């Protein structure tokens, strides 16, 4: 439906087409070259944080902490991930990453999420392809449900808002609805795929 190859192609093709029409070819090329450098800097910036948290998570895992967290939150997640056993490392990593997102710890959430994806790939029945569990997990992440939308609150308070955190509840409601729609979309597509196979 939305092939990444087509989208990527369209961004470049339409971009340079418009650049040609508006006489901004040179600027666009320079921006592209700047983006290459920016990608490297961004990766380097991310790597330090990612590596530190991966190290810490390895300790958490060795101490049996992730399994404990998974066990505690299992009743909540078991309906979404029925195939993952109660104390599986995958469920533990998923739980921790969702908890970080809920608390608005966006920096810590990314390494935790990557860890969860690694665990899911280990038990992926079709390695190298998106599994059902990955799709469900990513629907939850993309929904972006959070009790503390920290960045938004920060931007609002910097702009001199009298009530920067007044948006917490509306944001929670909107993101819950978005998450539900994403989850339902996945379940519907999964169902139609299964039926077309039979």
């Amino acid at each position, binding site marked *: 439906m939305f092939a990444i190859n087509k989208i990527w192609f369209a961004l470049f093709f339409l971009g340079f087409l418009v650049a040609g029409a508006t006489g901004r070819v040179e600027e666009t090329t320079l921006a592209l070259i700047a983006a290459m450098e920016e*990608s490297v800097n961004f990766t380097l910036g991310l790597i330090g944080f990612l590596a530190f948290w991966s190290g810490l998570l390895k300790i958490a895992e*060795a101490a049996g902490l992730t399994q404990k967290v998974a066990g505690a939150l299992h009743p909540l997640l078991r309906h979404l991930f029925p195939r993952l056993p109660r104390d599986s490392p995958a469920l533990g990593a998923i739980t921790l990453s969702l908890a970080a997102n809920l608390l608005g710890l966006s920096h810590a959430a990314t390494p935790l999420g990557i860890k969860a994806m*690694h665990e899911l790939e280990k038990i992926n029945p079709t390695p190298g392809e998106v599994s059902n569990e990955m799709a469900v997990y990513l629907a939850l992440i993309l929904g*972006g449900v959070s009790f503390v939308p920290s960045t938004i609150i920060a931007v609002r308070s910097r702009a001199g808002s009298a009530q920067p955190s007044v948006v917490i509840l509306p944001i929670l409601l909107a993101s819950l609805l978005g998450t539900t729609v994403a989850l339902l979309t996945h379940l519907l597509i999964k169902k139609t795929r299964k039926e077309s196979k039979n």
Partner: protein
Amino acid sequence: MKILSVWAIPLFILIVLACGEYKGVKVYETFIEGAGAGLKTGFQLLPYFLAIFGALAVFKTSGALSLFCRLSTPFARLLRIPEEILPLGLVKPLSGSGTIGFLADLIQKHGPDSPLGLMASIIAGGSETTFYVLTVYLGAVGISRPKHLIGMGLLGDLAAFFAAIVISRWFQIG
């Protein structure tokens, strides 16, 4: 709330280290091992960042993005959405920093507690940056075909966008 967010990361570090010590884990050596694995994942992400940042830079700088936003103005009128809001909804799934930039600009102009400022804040917080999340999370495990996940994410974004508009209107009446 503020204390919680200031202490969240230190507390997490302290709890993990304390549990490790208590369980007799060799904390330093285990950390090094895990950090090495994290480093590898980080480098693996570079090609994905190159692809998405490069494409977005071309699309934005060329003026294609603002053209796209301008073409959408009639739709905004049709759906009775404030014209300034629709570009925010279009940028939201593509770029996190772009969204924050748009939001900061909008609330600077209209005031953070104005009806438009509130609506923009709720839209900006109502979903994740779909393309960025899929790039990072799938890239980390080397999956380059997102299958139906882009469509799934964008439908979720669309639902959150309209929900944010409706909710912000209720919110201001009530």
